C-alpha cells in the first residue's frame, strides 16, 4: 500500500515538473486556453487505446491487436457511413445509419475481443502470441476490405465526435473522461474488476478462490476490444477518414503509457488515475516540445527516456524503503 502511494507521489511530481519545465521553455504560449484545448483534442486517442491495453495488462497479459481492431472497426463504420450517405453527394443526415454504423464498428471490435479471449482463456495461448496472431489477421482483413486505400468523407455529426466543442471542452475529451470513469468503476467497484486484479497477481490462487478464470479473461479481452472500438470512433472522426494502418506507432506507446502510470507489466497492479496522470505528462511533454519546434521523433525518444527514468526512480525508492524497514 505504502509503495503504491509513493508511486502516485512520484507521478504527480513528474507531472508538475513537466508542466513547470514546459512553462519555462515556452513562456506564456504554453499556459493559454488554445494550447490546453489542442492538448485535450490529442490526448484521448492514445488515452482510449491505453485503457484498452491497461485492462489486459492487469491480468498479466497484453493486447497487441488493439490498433488493428480499432482500424478494422473504424473501416467498417466508415464504409457503412460513406455507402449510405456521402456528404459530397448531398445526401441528408440519417441518424439511423449513424447509429447502425457505430454499432457495427463496436460489434466488430467486440468480436475480435471475444476471439482474443477465447484464444487466451480456452485454447490457453500466451496473450502476447494470441494477440500478435489476431493483430496480423485483423490488419490483413482491414487491408483486404480497403485494398490499402483511405476511406474518407464522413457526415458532420460523426465528425463532431472528433472535432466538436461542448462548453469549450473538446468532445473527444468528454468521451475519454466518460470511458476512463467507467473503466475505473468497473475495475474498482465490480466483482469482475476485483477478479481481474486477483487473476493478475496470482492466477492459481485466484482459481482456488473459486473464480472462473477463463470467464474473467474472456471478459477482460472483450472489454479491451470494446474500448479499442470506442477509440476507433474518435480516430476516424478526427481524421475524417479510415485506413488499415492508422496509428500503428501507438501500439507500443500504449504499453509505455500504462507502465508509466504504474501498471505492473506482470499484472495485478495498476490504477486508472495513474494512467491518466501518465497520459497528461506525455501529452504536456509532446505539446510543449512541439511548440518550441522540436522534431516529433525527438519527442518520442524523450518519452522513452522518461519511462526508463520513472521506472528507475521507482525501483530506487522501493529499495531505499525496504532497507529502512529492515534496519
Amino acid at each position: 500500500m505504502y509503495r503504491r502511494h509513493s508511486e502516485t507521489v512520484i507521478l504527480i511530481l513528474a507531472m508538475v515538473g513537466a508542466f513547470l519545465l514546459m512553462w519555462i521553455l515556452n513562456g506564456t504560449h504554453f499556459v493559454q486556453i488554445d494550447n490546453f484545448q489542442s492538448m485535450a483534442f490529442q490526448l484521448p486517442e492514445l488515452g482510449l487505446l491505453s485503457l484498452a491495453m491497461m485492462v489486459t495488462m492487469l491480468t498479466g497479459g497484453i493486447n497487441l491487436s488493439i490498433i488493428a481492431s480499432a482500424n478494422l472497426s473504424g473501416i467498417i463504420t466508415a464504409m457503412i457511413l460513406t455507402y449510405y450517405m456521402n456528404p459530397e453527394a448531398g445526401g441528408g443526415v440519417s441518424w439511423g445509419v449513424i447509429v447502425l454504423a457505430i454499432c457495427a464498428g463496436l460489434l466488430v471490435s467486440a468480436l475480435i475481443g471475444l476471439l482474443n479471449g477465447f484464444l487466451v482463456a480456452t485454447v490457453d495461448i500466451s496473450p502476447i502470441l494470441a494477440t500478435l496472431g489476431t493483430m496480423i489477421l485483423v490488419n490483413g482483413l482491414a487491408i483486404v476490405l480497403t485494398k490499402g486505400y483511405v476511406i474518407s468523407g464522413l457526415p458532420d455529426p460523426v465528425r463532431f465526435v472528433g472535432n466538436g466543442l461542448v462548453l469549450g471542452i473538446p468532445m473527444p475529451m468528454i468521451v475519454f473522461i466518460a470511458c476512463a470513469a467507467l473503466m475505473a468503476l468497473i475495475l474498482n467497484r465490480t466483482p469482475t474488476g476485483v477478479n481481474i486484479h486477483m487473476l493478475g497477481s496470482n492466477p492459481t490462487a485466484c482459481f482456488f478462490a473459486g473464480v472462473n478464470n477463463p470467464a474473467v479473461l474472456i471478459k477482460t479481452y472483450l472489454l479491451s476490444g470494446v474500448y479499442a472500438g470506442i477509440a476507433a470512433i474518435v480516430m476516424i472522426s478526427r481524421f475524417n477518414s479510415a485506413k488499415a494502418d492508422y496509428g500503428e506507432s501507438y501500439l507500443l506507446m500504449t504499453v509505455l503509457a500504462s507502465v508509466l502510470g504504474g501498471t505492473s507489466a506482470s499484472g495485478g497492479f495498476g490504477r486508472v488515475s495513474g494512467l491518466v496522470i501518465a497520459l497528461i505528462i506525455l501529452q504536456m511533454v509532446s505539446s510543449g516540445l512541439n511548440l518550441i519546434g522540436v522534431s516529433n521523433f525527438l519527442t518520442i525518444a524523450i518519452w522513452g527516456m522518461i519511462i526508463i527514468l520513472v521506472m528507475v526512480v521507482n525501483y530506487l525508492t522501493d529499495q531505499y524503503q525496504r532497507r529502512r524497514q529492515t534496519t
Partner: protein
Amino acid sequence: MKKLLARHETYVLLAIILFSAIITSVNPSFLTLENLFDLLRSYSMMGIFAVGVLIVLISGGIDISFTAVATVAAYAMTVISINYGGNMLTAFLIASVIGIALGLINAVVIYFFNIPSIITTIATLNVYYGLLTVVSGGKWIYALPDWFRSFSDIKVFTLSSGEGVGYGLSLVTVIWFVIVALAWVLLRYTLLGRGLYAMGGNVASARRAGFNLFFLHVFVYCFMGLMAGIGGVVQVLLVQTMAPNSMVGKELDVIAAVVLGGASLAGGTGTLFGTLLGVALIAILSNGLTLMRVPSFWYNVFIGLVIIVSVGFSAYRRKSKERRAIAVEVE
C-alpha cells in the same frame, strides 16, 4: 517415431512440406534451386535477427529494440564507410561494435533496475530510433561505396539457368548459416549456452547453481545487439539503400517466426533448428502466395491465420500432455 511426434519441429516441418506441395502444384517454379537460393538470400536478415531473438527468448527475456539497434548500427556503418572509406570487414566491425554497445545499455537497465525486459526494450526502441531519425533527418542514402555494392553480388558458386542468367548461393546466406552454426555450438556444447537455458528455465535455480546472472544478461543482450548490427548491414547489402524506416516495425514479425519454431516466451526452451523452420515457414508462405498470384493484400490474413492455428495447436498439445500427466498422478 513417438519421440519424433513429441517434438514441435516435426509439425512445423510437416506444415512446410504441405505448403510447398500446394504451392508447387499451382506453380512449379516454386520448387527450383533458383527460387530457393533467392529465398535464402532475401530472408537472411530475418534469419540473423531470429538467431538473436531465439537466444533472448531462451534466457527468459524479450527484446523489441533490435530493429532500432540494427537501424542505428547500419546507419552509422553507412555514414562512416562513405566518409572515411573502409572495407567489408570494417563495415561489419563498426555495426557490430555499435550493436553490442546498444545491447549493453539494454542489459544494464534490465539487470540493475529490475525493469521487465519488454518494457525496457520498447522504451529503448523509441529512444534509439527517435534519436537516429533526428540525427539522420530520416533521409535515405543511395550513394553506397562500390566495394559495398559489389559484395552483395558475390556468390559462393554459380549455376546458370536456361536463359543464361547466373544464380547461386549468395555469400550473404553463408554469413547467416555460419552464425547459425556458431550459435548452435554455443547453445549445445558450452557452459554459457547451458547457462542461458538454466536462467530461462528458473532464475533462482540458475543463481544457486552458481551462474553469474549479470554476465549472462550482458551476454544475451549484447549478442542480440551483435545480431542486430550484422543483420542491419545485411539488410543494406540486400536492398542497396540505407533507409532509416525500413526495419523498425518488423520486430514482431521476427518474434512471431521464432515462436512458430517452438521457442517459448516463458523462456528455457527453443532450438535453432526450430527457429530456422519458423523463418522458412514465413518465407515460403509469403513467397508461395506471390507465386500463386494471390493479391498481395491477402498476405497478412494468411500469415495471421497460420500463426493463430500453429500456436493454438501447440498450446492444445501442451494442455493435453498436462492433462495426461495429472491423470497418471491420480492413479
